[in-house]
């Protein structure tokens, strides 16, 4: 097994918007080492989020491939389906892509994306519920709860378990999102502008948390347009005109 945990090569992604075609990624290639903190910078609308979504198997490139631990995430281009169907579980490739999202990656979004009907603990536990049968969940629920409490303690929200997202500040919500992304111990944490919606103080606290996680060996890929945030990373790549350049 090579040292590269996540390798993307020749990624192309074009969006068709009415009559116009938007070629967002034009052959992006990158490699993320185990335990690396990689920041991808770029202007707004440059395709940073699209690249992150493809790296996390959330979106599908028209061309190119992503290898996770040397295994392809997407089907070969000829057999690749760009859009989800209701029958995705019938396809082996699609099942595999979903499995990566479930077990290998953890997402943190700019706008937190917590489920408003669930409280803090339930939002975090949801990650563990996904992919569990009722029977498995019944067997593992105590361990899952223990893990969720541990991670919430880590992000400083262990006393706000029963609060709903609407009752939390922006920084607290983002910490819940990080706890949710980490509770299943993903190999790669993918963060899309995690400080973009936070004030300076909350942003700094969050970056401190990410730095701590990185220090413990967590592989992090972070997308940002803020050079201050990118400065915390081991390595910074710049996305311009659909291609990646070293910063």
């Amino acid at each position, binding site marked *: 097994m090579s040292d590269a945990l996540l390798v993307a090569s020749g990624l192309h992604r074009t969006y068709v918007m009415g009559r116009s075609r938007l070629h967002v990624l034009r052959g992006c290639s990158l490699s993320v080492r185990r335990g690396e903190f990689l920041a991808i910078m770029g202007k707004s609308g440059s395709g940073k989020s*699209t690249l992150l*979504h493809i790296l*996390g198997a*959330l*979106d599908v490139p028209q061309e190119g491939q992503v290898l996770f631990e040397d295994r392809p995430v997407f089907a070969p281009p000829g057999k690749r389906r760009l*859009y*989800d*169907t*209701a*029958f*995705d*579980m019938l396809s082996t490739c699609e*099942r595999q892509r*979903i*499995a990566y*999202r*479930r*077990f290998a990656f953890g*997402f943190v*979004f700019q706008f937190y*994306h*917590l*489920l408003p*009907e*669930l409280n803090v603990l339930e939002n975090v536990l*949801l*990650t563990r*519920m*996904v*992919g*569990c*049968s*009722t029977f*498995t*969940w019944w067997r593992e629920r105590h361990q899952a709860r223990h893990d969720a409490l541990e991670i919430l303690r880590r992000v400083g929200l262990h006393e706000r378990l029963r609060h709903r997202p609407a009752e939390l500040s922006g920084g607290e919500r983002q910490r819940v999102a990080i706890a*949710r992304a980490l509770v299943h111990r993903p190999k790669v944490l993918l963060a899309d502008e995690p400080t973009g919606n936070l004030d300076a103080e909350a942003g700094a606290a969050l970056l401190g948390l990410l730095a701590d996680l990185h220090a413990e060996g967590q592989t992090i890929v972070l997308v940002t347009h803020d050079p201050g945030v990118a400065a915390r990373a081991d390595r910074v790549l710049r996305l311009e005109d659909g291609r990646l350049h070293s910063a």
Partner: protein
Amino acid sequence: MYKLFLTLRYLRKRRIAYFAIAAVMLCTAMVLIVMSVMGGFLDQLKTKARGLLGDVIIDNRSYSGFPLYDEFIADISAWPEIVKATPVLYTYGLLRFHGTPRTHTVQVVGVRLEDVYQVNAFRGSLYYEKYYPGTTHLGEQQQPLVGFDVAGPAIEWRDQHGALLGSGPRPLLPPAYQTALEKSWSAGIRDDESPASEFATMLKAAGLPPIVGQYEAVPGIGPPLMVGDPQPGLIIGRDIIATRLPDGRYQRYWNIPRGCLVTLTLLPMSSAGTVDTPVKQPLRYVDDSRTGIYEIDSRHVYCDFELLQKLLRMDAAERVDAQTGETIGVVPPRCSQIQVKIAAGHDPRDVARRLKEYYHGMVKDPRFSGMLDLNDMQLIGFIDALTWEESQAHIIAPVEKERQLVTILFAIISLVAAVLVLCILYMIVLQKTRDIGIIKALGGSSAGVALIFIAYGAAVGIVGSALGTIIGYYFVTYINQIQDWLTRMNPAWQVWDRSVYSFDAIPNTVRSADMITVIVAAIIASTLGSLAAAWRAGTMQPVEALRHE
């Protein structure tokens, strides 16, 4: 696991889903009420019709009747499949209560009471026979008057609260009636179908059996008496001599006591179908019958078969030659109908067919050669034997069809609930677009996301149909009380007219099979209604869903 978790959470937290649940609930209740009332109506119709008829009915649909019934009954009584057969006479008449201006046009039924008891459930419909067993007969009898036990010890009169009102001699009926009443009282038979009178309450408070029904009292304080000329008995439909109270009980008219005199005016009819001079017959009201079918209880009176036959001149008579005036034989007696009870395990259709063939064959029987004239032979030729279901098919079949039709119509209307579920779930899917993106980002599959909404639809169906079934069940159970309450509020709101719907009460039984059918149908409809929303949710692209504003 997340599918079940989110389904239950959305069900609890998305208040808009309550509208879908309410729609399913109302539709379920509506269909269940319709099915129960119509089904109950049909069942009652069958039960009541069955209770008043034999297993097989032999009839020629002519008020002139048909002859040789006694010979026929004697012959078929030897058949192993025949339990009992009895002749019945039908005619119309005018009933007048003495001492009142009340007159009624009635259908007069002539029966051999003891035989009818064995053929159908007529005995169970009698009021006085229930509380005074063995006292109802159609033979000549006097009027019983309530008197007092002047020689016995005085009893204390108390009201329903036990407060002492005074004391006096114990009220008593003539011995045969008093003995029968005490027998039924000790057997635990209580009158809960009539409102308690003050008299009955005082007797009960004194620990004595209350005098059930309406009796005239002796003048002054004297012993009980049997008074008046002996006259044949008459059983009268309960809706003629009593009024139904809103709670379903019957209040007997005070001026129509048991044993009072009535007059029946009849039109005799010859075998040729000609009407003779009207005849009047005084009778005594001995009992009242409640079959539960309004048309019958408000019109039928029952007297002795032989008496009615004689009054209608349908009994045996000399046959006179119209030209010479000489007696040339005997005109056989006639009846209108024969009711037959058959033994269990025999096919009524097959027995009916054989009975009909046998009756038609009697015309050629040498035993009766020269006894029948052309009219008699024609009357026998018209005879048909039908099972009770066939004889009532003209009533049962339309109601059965009506029930199917109404159920289908209401089921179609209930599709509104499925469409509403579709609309509401589709709206929820649109509202939860970002949530769907999050679930997919966490590793939820498209099929899994779709299943959340299918399970949501099913859950709406389960909760809605369960609530609807509870509401429907209690509505149907208390439907008569609800109607009585509405009628008390405004008489124009009475929806169940006994004269229209035959029965004096709305059917109020919910069948388990109907409940299960309605619940299953509601769940299937709701689940189908959720499919479009589920498809939309399942095919939603996670990236687009996450970017949804």
